[in-house]
C-alpha cells in the first residue's frame, strides 16, 4: 500500500493557496530570490554566532551542529489551534491524573482498563514513588506532545513526552530569527507571540514549590555542557533568571537541598531537571551516575524540594502505555478524547505480532523504549533487506516493539537544494501544568529534510520552522 496523497499545509488539492497562507505566499512571490538567498545565509551565520547548536551523540566529542532552519513558516489558523489546544490540555490533564493514580490507589488498574503488569512491570515505573505526594498532584509540569496532521482538522498524537522534553528553545529562537530577518512579514500578519514562554515556565515552577515556601529558589539542573540539549538548558536558565546547576553544584544535608555558592551554601526549593531519572540520585538509581545528587530522593520524598518533572513520569509516556491514553481520558475526566491516537499493534500480543509480521511493508515499527528516531522501521520507505532484518528482530523480541500504520504526515513547502519542495513535518506544542494549565500558541515544528522521509528528529537530519498561530 503506497501512500500517494499528502495534505499540503500551504496549498489545497486544486493548487490554490489556502487562505491562511495567502499573505505569506504573496510575499514569497514578490520577494527577489537573491534577497531570500542572502537572508537564508544570514540566518545560518547568526545561528553559528549565537552558538545555537546541538551536540551529536556518537560523533567526536564536542561536535556541535546547527539544526537546519527553514524560513517558510508553518502557519496554523486560529480555530484549528483552538481545537488542538483543547485536545492537548485534556490529554495532559488525564496523563497527570494517571501518574498520580498509579503512584497512589491504582484505581484504573483495579477497574481493569489497563493490564496491571503493563504498568507495574514497566522499567519506567518507579516503586520509590509509591505513596509520595507531590505539589498540586502535578507530575508532568512540562509536557511536549508530538502531533502530526493527516488531513484537514485531523490531528494525531504520536507521542506524549513527559520526562525531559526538549526543543522549546528552538521554538523561541526560530521566532527571534524570523522577526530579525523578515520584520515586514510580522507587520502583515497577526502572529500570536510566544516570547513569554520562559515567564510562564518560571511561574509554573514557582507554583509547584514545596508547601510553606513563599519565595522559592528555582534552578535548572543540566547534565553539563556536553549534553545534546545544553544550549536549551542554559537558554532557559538565563531567560528565567535562575541558576543553571550541575549535580556537583548541589548537595543534600538533613533532607534539604543546597547549592554551593561563592557565599556559602544556599537552599534550593524547585529543581527543573533536565537529567533522566536514572541519573538523578546515585544513592537510589544508577550508582555510577556523576550527574546526580546523592540523597536527592530523600529530600524529595520528604517534601522538602520539588523535582520537575517528577520522578517516574516515564510510566505514562512509554510506547506500551500510549494505546491506553484515550481510556485514561474517559476514566479520569469522563470526556471523549479530542485528539486521535494512532492505532497501535502491541507485538507482545500474539495476534498483533502476527498482523505486524504480515503487513511490515506498510507499517512503522518502533522500539517501545526508543527515542530520537533511533531503532525504527518505516515500512514504505525501507528496502526488502531492511524489512527482513526487522522481521528477525520482531520474532526474537516481540515485546520490545509496537507497530502503527504509516500516517500520511502533512507536508509544507520547504527550501531544499533544488529549490522549494514539500517536506513532511510534525509539531511539538508545550503544555505547562502548575496551579493552572498554560500554553503558548504554537510549538516547535520539525521538518524532515530528506525527500519522502517521515522522520523529523534533529538527530536524523531534521530541521525546524517557525510556527505561526494566526490570531483571529
Amino acid at each position, binding site marked *: 500500500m503506497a501512500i500517494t496523497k499528502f495534505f499540503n499545509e500551504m496549498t489545497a488539492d486544486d493548487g490554490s493557496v489556502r487562505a491562511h497562507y495567502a499573505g505569506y505566499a504573496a510575499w514569497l512571490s514578490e520577494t527577489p530570490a537573491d534577497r531570500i538567498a542572502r537572508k537564508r545565509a544570514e540566518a545560518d551565520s547568526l545561528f*553559528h*554566532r*549565537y*552558538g545555537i547548536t546541538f551536540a551529536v551523540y556518537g560523533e567526536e566529542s564536542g561536535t556541535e551542529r546547527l539544526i537546519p532552519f527553514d524560513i517558510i513558516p508553518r502557519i496554523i489558523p486560529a480555530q484549528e489551534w483552538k481545537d488542538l489546544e483543547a485536545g492537548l490540555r485534556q490529554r495532559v490533564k488525564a496523563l497527570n491524573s494517571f501518574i498520580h493514580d498509579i503512584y497512589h490507589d491504582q484505581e484504573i488498574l483495579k477497574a481493569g482498563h489497563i493490564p496491571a503488569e503493563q504498568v507495574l512491570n514497566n522499567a519506567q515505573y518507579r516503586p520509590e514513588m509509591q505513596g509520595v505526594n507531590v505539589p498540586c498532584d502535578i507530575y508532568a509540569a512540562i509536557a511536549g506532545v508530538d502531533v502530526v496532521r493527516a488531513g484537514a482538522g485531523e490531528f494525531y498524537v504520536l507521542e506524549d513526552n513527559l520526562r525531559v522534553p526538549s526543543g522549546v528553545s528552538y521554538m523561541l529562537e526560530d521566532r527571534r530569527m524570523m522577526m530579525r530577518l523578515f520584520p515586514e512579514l510580522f507587520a502583515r500578519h497577526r502572529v500570536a507571540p510566544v516570547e513569554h514562554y520562559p515567564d510562564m515556565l518560571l511561574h509554573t515552577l514557582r507554583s509547584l514549590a514545596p508547601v510553606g515556601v513563599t519565595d522559592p529558589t528555582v534552578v535548572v539542573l543540566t547534565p*553539563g*555542557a556536553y549534553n545534546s540539549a*545544553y544550549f536549551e538548558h*542554559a*537558554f532557559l*536558565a*538565563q531567560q528565567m533568571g535562575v*541558576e*543553571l*546547576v*550541575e549535580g*556537583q*553544584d548541589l*548537595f543534600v*544535608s538533613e533532607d534539604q537541598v*543546597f*547549592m*554551593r*555558592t*561563592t*557565599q*556559602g*551554601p544556599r537552599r534550593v526549593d524547585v529543581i527543573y531537571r533536565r537529567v533522566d531519572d536514572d541519573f538523578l540520585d546515585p544513592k537510589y538509581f544508577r550508582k555510577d551516575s556523576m550527574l546526580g545528587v546523592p540523597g536527592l530522593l530523600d529530600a524529595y520524598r520528604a517534601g522538602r524540594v520539588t523535582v520537575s518533572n517528577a520522578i517516574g513520569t516515564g510510566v505514562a509516556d512509554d510506547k506500551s502505555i500510549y494505546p491506553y491514553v484515550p481510556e485514561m481520558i474517559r476514566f479520569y475526566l469522563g470526556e471523549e478524547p479530542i485528539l486521535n491516537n494512532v492505532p497501535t499493534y502491541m507485538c507482545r500480543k500474539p495476534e498483533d505480532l502476527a498482523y505486524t509480521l504480515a503487513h511490515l511493508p506498510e507499517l512503522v515499527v518502533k522500539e517501545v523504549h526508543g527515542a530520537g528516531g533511533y531503532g525504527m522501521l518505516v515500512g514504505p520507505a525501507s528496502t526488502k533487506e531492511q524489512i527482513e532484518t526487522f522481521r528477525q528482530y520482531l520474532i526474537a523480541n516481540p515485546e520490545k516493539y509496537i507497530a502503527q500504520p504509516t500516517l500520511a504526515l502533512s507536508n509544507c513547502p520547504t527550501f531544499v537544494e533544488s529549490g522549494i519542495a514539500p517536506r513532511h513535518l510534525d509539531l511539538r506544542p508545550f503544555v505547562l501544568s502548575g496551579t493552572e494549565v498554560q500554553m503558548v500558541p504554537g510549538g516547535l515544528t520539525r521538518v524532515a529534510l530528506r525527500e519522502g522521509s517521515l522522520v523529523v528528529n534533529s538527530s536524523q537530519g531534521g530541521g525546524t520552522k517557525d510556527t505561526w498561530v494566526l490570531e483571529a
Partner: protein
Amino acid sequence: MLSRTADHLFWMARYMERAENTARILDVTYRLSLLPQNGEEVEAMWSGMLKIMELQDAYLAKYPAYSTEAVLEFMIFDRDNPGSIYRCLRATRENAHAVRGTLTSELWETSNETWLKMRDFTVAKLLESGPGAFFEWVKYRSHLSRGVTIGTMLQDEALRFIRLGTFLERADNTARILEVKYLNLLPGADEEQAHATDYYQWSALLQSVSAFEVYRKVYRDQITPLRVAELLVLRADMPRSLARSMKEVHSNLTRVSNARSAETERLAGELESHLRFGRIERIFEGGFRKYLEDFRDRIFDLGCRISDDFLIPTSS
C-alpha cells in the same frame, strides 16, 4: 553565585587575557629577533622566551631546534600546547560555553566568534599576512571582549570574578613580558651595562604593551631602563602595570569577600601597597629579574587561594 560559575568566569577571563599577552610577548620577541644579530642570539631569544612561558620542555619534546617559524607555530597553533593561542581561545570559549547563561548574549557571541575565526586560521594564512597582523587581531578580539564585558554586564559578582581573572592574569603576564627584556643577556653579563645600550629593545618592549606613547607623555624624555620599569611596575595610572593590576585584583577581591577570604584579601592588599609605596631604585638594587620572579610566585599563590576560598570550596 555558584562556585562553579565563578570558576568558569574567572578562567574565561584569564584565558582571554593570556591569549592577548601571549600575542604581545610573541610580538615583542619577534620584533627583537629582527634586530641585527647573529643566528645564535636569535635562537637564545626564542629559547629564553619559552623558558619564561614555562614551555621549553614541551617545545623540545616536539622540535629539535629553535627557529622563528617553529616557535610561532608551536605558540599559536599547536593543539597539544596548553599555552598556545589556539588553546587559550578554545579554553576561553569552553569556559564561556559552560556559563553562557550568566553572560550577556553579546559577550558569549564575542567569545564564540573569536573561537570560530581562530579555528579557521592556518599557518599559511599567517605567513601570508605576516605574524604582526595576527597578533593585532588577537589583541583586538581581547579588547572587544573586555569592552563588551564592561559595556553590557551587570555590575554584580559575575563581573567581579571576570575582572579578578583578567587582572590576576595580567599581573603575571606583564611581569613575564618584562623578563623578556633580559633574554639575550648572556649569563654573567652586567645588567647595568646592557641597560645602557639597548634603546631599541626597550622601545620594542614598550610598544608590545601599548606603552610607547604613554612613556613619551609621562616622561617627555629619552627612554631609560629605570623609567620603563617604573612605568610598567609602579605607575598605577598605566593600565597594564603591575601596580594597576594589583589595585584591581585587591578591590575586586574586597567586593566578593566571604567568610573565609580574609587572609587572601590581606595578602593582595599587602602586595598592592608594596607597589603603591615602592621605589624603583630600591627594586633595582635587589635585582630586577629576581623581583619579577618573586612577584610571579606571589601571584601564583594568590590564584590558589582565590580558588580555595571561592571557586572550588573544599568543604560544603
